[in-house]
């Protein structure tokens, strides 16, 4: 995703992060790699957009962070979904489905004819 991510795509990034965290807490790098893998390397999040998104979502209360110790005793910050975040994930997921369905309808129309 490019730096000048328009609102629509920023919202999508949020949705993806929320979904990624649904399976369990992850640190920042973990989130980036998980997304890469899930999409089969089709989607590559730029690190520059990831952290601002994470901090923003923390401020909004959708995710929360926790400092812990890594295997080699280094301080590591990991993120997890909050209750509010879980609810939002469901909403945004539904919104996305509606949106894509609508777009698909429009596009198919052209093809059909």
């Amino acid at each position: 995703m490019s730096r000048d991510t328009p609102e629509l795509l920023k919202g999508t990034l949020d949705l993806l992060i929320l979904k990624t965290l649904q399976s369990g807490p992850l640190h920042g790098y973990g989130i980036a790699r998980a997304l890469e893998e899930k999409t089969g390397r089709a989607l590559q999040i730029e690190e520059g957009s990831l952290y601002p998104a994470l901090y923003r979502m923390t401020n909004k209360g959708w995710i929360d962070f926790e400092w812990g110790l890594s295997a080699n005793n280094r301080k590591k910050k990991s993120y997890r979904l909050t209750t509010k975040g879980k609810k939002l994930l469901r909403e945004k997921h539904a919104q996305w489905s509606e949106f894509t369905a609508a777009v698909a309808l429009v596009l198919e129309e052209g093809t059909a004819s």
Partner: protein
Amino acid sequence: MSLITDGWMRLRSVLSKRERDRQIEEELTDHFDALVRDLVERGLSPIDARAEATTRFGDARVIRKELRSMEAQRINREQRSSYFEELSQDIRYGVRQLFKKPAFTAIVIGTLAIGIGANTAVFSVLKGVFLDPLPFDEPHELTYIWHGGTDGGCCGPLSGPDYLDIKEGTETFEDIAVMVTRNTNLNSDGEPVMVLGARITPNLFSVLRVSPAMGRPFTEDDQIVGNRAVILSDGIWRNRLGGDPAVIGSTIRLNRETYSVVGVMPAGFNAPSPWRLNRTHDIYLPFAKEEIDQAARNSHWLLAIGRLKRDVPVETGDAELKSISESLAEQYPNTNRVKTTYVHSMHERLVGRVGTQLILLLSAAGFMLLIVCGNVASLLLSRATARQTEMAIRAAVGAGRSRIVRQLLTESLLLSTVGGGAGIALAVAGMTYLRSVIPTDIPRITNIGIDGMVLGFALLISIVTGILFGLAPALSASRSNLTESLKESRAAPQAGSRRAVLRGALVASQFALALVLANGAALMVQSYLRFRGMEQGFDPENVLTVNVSLQGESYDDVWDRDYFLRESIDRIAAIPGVRHVGATSKLPLNGGTNGHVWAEDDPDRDPNLEGPLIEFSRVSGHYFAAAGIRLVAGRLPTGDDSLAARPGTIINQEMANRLWPDEDPIGKRYSFRTDPPHWMTVVGVVEDVRQWGPYTRARAEHYLPYTAPGWAQGHRMYLIVKTDIEPLSIVGQVRQAVLAVDPDQPISEIRTMEGVLSEEFAGQRFNTMLVGMFAGIALLLVSAGVYGVVSFFVAQTSREIGIRMALGAAQSKVLGLTILRGLRLAAIGTAVGVGGIFATMKVIRSLLYGASPVDIPTMIAGVVALICVGLFASLVPARRAARVSPVTALRSE
């Protein structure tokens, strides 16, 4: 484990910005390194990997900035919400705690209410009387202009020609107006009634910047003799004339003459006279031009009010008028040679002298409040000991010390604000009573009330009080050692003894404050009694005084007035129970009128020099007998004395001493400074009677027979009636007697001489009463404080006492030791208090009317009294200590 790491990291990021940035840095670096590692794993060279990672991260600086600001936002929001959460927690907890101990809470709130209420009430008086600006536009520009002597004497009214010259010559004043106050008889339907009138120059309203609410102000035409115009006050228009909207153009009868109403002033307006502080002028009449133009230059009778030009200070106006006086002195050496002018700000003259007194009263109330704080702090400290376990547990569960202190302070503030609210209620309730007992020589009484500023003041002192008495106990209570307090069921000795020392210090300081207060009160009482018991020079017992106002054309001739007086006196003398009747133009102690005189055979008499200033009044009938003024030499005036070419007069001792020291004054002649001089002969000398209130020495004075020529025409006279029975019981008959002589003549200012005398002391009485009350409450509080501390001590050491007694200590010894504790506090406190008395000595001088504030016998009495208080307050707990059964004490552990 991770909980601790997380908490630790969060705490550090809250506390230090650098740490916050470091943590962001760490997170990003972590990601970077992990990325590089992965890329290397996928086959890139380390260098290429780093380059790739850097590209992927983009503009690191921008990102960092963004992250930092978002992190800062997050922390702020977190802190704010937790702050409010904690505050509401504290308040709820505090309220619950207070309800748990209702007696304690009630006592504390009660004493706080008294302390804060008293301060609020006194402050409301201070504000209404002194702090509030005068009810005029730009009141700081308004001044009074007085005539004084170059020898420094001040302050008298101006003369007409002097006023006109000053008014013309001034450049610092925007305008100057003059006025005099006259009692006037209003003859409306029904009984004639006396109203307060003011004769004014038409520009008085413009100087004060007020316009009539109805009709018009006075013009120059109104000043022509014969054009009888009058302007009414709002009060009299509503009360006496029914608020008739068609009043303009209607007529009223004043002094039996018809006047036409041309205007009505707005509600609340009153021409400000410094001699009638709480009375409203009912009507305004214009001076005739000649009254001022053609008056004598050395007849001083006009109250001058001037408005300075914008931004001109009073001192500049004063200096200019003084120089104008100097040029007048050169122009008219006969009359003005030793005259000068004084300019005083109106605010200063009207309320200035009361300001100091009120501030001192407020300080006394403040002392009392401090003592209240001491008591409450002491009570809280004792509670701290009881709540030790609670505090220790809270600390163990993780509440920081600051959190505990905050919570305890919240409790204290809760107490003090509730106490403050109760205090405000007390003050409001007491406001009506206060306004009725406040002495009438305090100006602007109607302006006293509880308004926003007063409420703000109450709130402020509630908060300050809460912090004052709450801080020390809060700090002390939070300093608890968990293990120790859980181990011992009684007080942990360290914290306990530290607290005991603190409480002891509190009580000692309360003693000091109470001593200063009690000493002040004792001195004030002494001073009051001394002044009250002074020989006044007249006998006020069973004397009735009424005022009659002989104005208008029918009384222009002195013989007409004289006839009225003689007739009235004769009729009143016929009333059963009346012993003597007389008349005078001024009452003792009620101010005076004065002028300069010459003695005839004064060989050094320089015609250009003014003689000494003499008070004068006119008398008729058996005035001296009625007033009980003793004759010390010569004889009383007879009828012939007023007819003689050189009328015979009575002078007082002071005048005799000043004009003819060491000589017999009988037969000596003197005159006022008229041209040609009008000689009068002394026929008798009477005792001195004070003219200017009970605190000023008697001045030289002479009494003129009524019809004798001279100054002070005597249009306004007081009838003095000495009775064998209660004076007020004959008021109706006196009124009838006067009406029989003149049916349009009301009597007014009906008082007894005792009442007049008492009124003079009303101010001192009021101050003394208040301070005495504060001192009394303070002593009560102090004794409660000592009692509390010593009881506490007994309770804490009952075990030790038990041991002592088991080992054979006599009861009396235990008693003695306990009492000694209380006495020691009293001793330290009074020692500090004595220092305090010396320190505040200059300050309270003005409340004592001349008595010295450092009066050793009184101080010693105060010290002894306080030590006795300490003694008796310790007695009860001491006896309890002595009755401790050693067996019980040792057993109950």
